[in-house]
């Protein structure tokens, strides 16, 4: 390709920071930029050229590609394994070609996501790095993801009780900025140390019995807050501690399918595809830990999560833990989601209150089938 490489990729939460860093290292001469920030226009654009019944991530991705192409991208990246998301790349490429765009499409789906194939793809694109340098860049990206996921996991649990509004977010932004700038593992170590120091200074004022909610579901809907109307932030604003295991680090290194299947016993006897088993295993863990509720989110038509739903319903009944099922599409009404979330927060708050009163009164027993 005679032109200078202009590499772009769709959004997935804030991971664009790491993807930009990685591609910047692998292709020092290329222009690297994430797709323009996700807006309502992105969704409309993506939906216009997508099959109507395809799941929402497809539409969001396609919108991202279209906007990135308008910004002058000539290399687009896609990946995906597990569910039908793994087949989206080919279709998206065809749709974009039919629209008359000229670009190179790097589709790292399914078996092409394996290390050897990945290496070949990167070389074909013209990566000038030696193999050790390439490995170093990869390692740095992985470590960056780990640092990010760690902080965000901790932040989701704590941020609802912060005493200074916006203090957690500020540390997060600083960490992201440092990660984006990092050129070596030493840089990253410095960034992590800085973040650790800053977060040690953060002050929280949690109530004695904070409300805790676990979030499970399909990977895209969970990780891209724009696609779920910022559910986590809505919960946090209501003073609820949020837990979510799902993240890129979890997907790359944390998943253990066999263990998850064991952990979801007796609700699942066999695999249901993609992260369905993880959803059930994580929900059961939340139930056992005494969380106040679980929110199960999926994009409309997500088969693995749909398969997991009956298991979750049984789990909800057996463990007396409310599960809110939310399904998102490009047509979903934000008001509807808000109403359901508000009601959910009210419900678990009232339930917790009642449970505590009952527990403190001898002989009343809230959870023992008296009612």
């Amino acid at each position, binding site marked *: 390709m005679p032109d200078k490489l202009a590499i772009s990729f769709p959004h997935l939460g804030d991971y664009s920071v790491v993807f930009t860093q990685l591609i910047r290292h692998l292709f020092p001469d290329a222009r690297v930029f994430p797709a323009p920030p996700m807006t*309502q226009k992105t969704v409309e654009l993506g939906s216009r050229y997508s099959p109507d019944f395809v799941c929402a991530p497809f539409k969001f991705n396609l919108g991202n590609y279209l906007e990135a192409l308008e910004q002058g991208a000539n290399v687009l990246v896609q990946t995906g394994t597990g569910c039908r998301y793994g087949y989206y790349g080919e279709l998206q490429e065809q749709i974009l070609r039919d629209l008359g765009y000229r670009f190179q499409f790097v589709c790292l789906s399914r078996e092409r996501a394996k290390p050897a194939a990945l290496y070949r793809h990167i070389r074909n694109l013209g990566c000038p790095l030696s193999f050790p340098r390439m490995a170093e860049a990869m390692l740095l990206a992985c470590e960056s993801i780990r640092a990010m996921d760690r902080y965000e996991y901790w932040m989701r649990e704590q941020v609802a009780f912060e005493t200074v509004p916006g203090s957690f977010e500020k540390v997060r932004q600083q960490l992201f900025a440092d990660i984006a700038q990092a050129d070596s593992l030493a840089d990253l170590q410095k960034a992590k140390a800085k973040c650790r120091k800053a977060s040690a200074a953060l002050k929280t004022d949690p109530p004695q019995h904070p409300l805790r909610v676990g979030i499970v579901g399909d990977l895209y809907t969970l990780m891209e807050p724009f696609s779920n109307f910022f559910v986590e932030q809505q919960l946090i604003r209501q003073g609820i501690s949020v837990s979510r295991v799902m993240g890129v680090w979890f997907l790359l290194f944390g998943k253990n399918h066999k263990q998850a299947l064991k952990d979801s016993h007796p609700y699942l006897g066999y695999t249901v595809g993609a992260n369905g088993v993880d959803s059930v295993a994580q929900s059961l863990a939340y139930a056992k830990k005494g969380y106040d509720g679980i929110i199960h989110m999926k994009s409309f038509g997500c088969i693995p999560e749909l398969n997991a739903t009956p298991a979750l319903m049984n789990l*909800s009944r057996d463990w007396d833990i409310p599960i809110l099922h939310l*399904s998102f599409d490009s047509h979903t009404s934000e008001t509807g989601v808000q*109403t359901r979330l508000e*009601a959910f927060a009210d*419900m678990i708050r009232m339930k917790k209150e009642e449970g505590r009163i009952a527990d403190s009164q001898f002989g009343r027993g809230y959870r023992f089938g*008296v*009612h």
Partner: protein
Amino acid sequence: MQTASLGVDIGSVSTKGVVLSESGEILASEYLWTEGDPVAATKKIIRSLKRQLPSSVVIGSVGTTGSARRLIGAMLEADVVKNEITAHAKGTLSRYPDVRTIIEIGGQDSKLILIRGGVVTDYAMNTLCAAGTGAFLSSQAKRLGIPVEELGDVALRSKYPAKIAARCTVFAESDLVHKAQAGHAKEDLVAGLCHAVVLNYLNNVGKGKQILEPIVFQGGVSKNKGVVHAFQQELKSRIHVDSHSHLMGALGAALLARGAKRSRPFDCEIVDLHFQTGVHTCVGCSNHCEIISFYRDGSLLDRWGNRCEKGLCQKENVS
């Protein structure tokens, strides 16, 4: 001098208002059509409630619920703005403390609220379409030339209810037309329609939920005896329908607001002020949020629809 609490439930189709005394009795109530103008409907409600109230009553707290709760909450300077599920549960629990299932069918949405030991433990709302709600019933009543209020009585006269597909309004409607042309009597069609609403509700909203007695049925559609009868048949249990079943949301809002510390009592004269909404598109970014501004006598009361702080309007972001 008596302090009372005002609850307003502004639904898509109807608007309900209740004034509740401190001991929990209903001092005044009103129910009327929203007709696409929640502000005007609320004004009418407040005027009517004021007429019913003795002058010794002072309204000490205000709560709003329903789909226009935010708008009307701003208008009435409400102490509590609550979602419909919590409001309905609260209202019903005040009258049926041992209720375990609340079925609510309104104009545009339907809900199922499960209560165990006086606490909401689960709920469901219709997700995809308005099949099996009041709006569907009233549009079909119009097609059959029967006033919607009389649907229930007509349905009860039926001996052989027609079988009408319940999955979706479009199927139900074509099925209804087909059955009518095939010669089914009108009351059989109406009874079939009521049954379809119930089946649709149980399949879409009630799926997988444990519906246990005592069951309370409320919302506008609960006034339709045909639907009540169909629920009784399907669930094989007794269905309680309160005489105030259409007011439960407003009742709950009034109860939730009770005890709010308000600087000055609610002034019914507020309805004589001029309220106005303005919609503009924020041009701060390509999200193009539709910002709704709510004015009282020309001064800004509240503004919403923004996704970020930009939308809360510096003038330059407004086109």
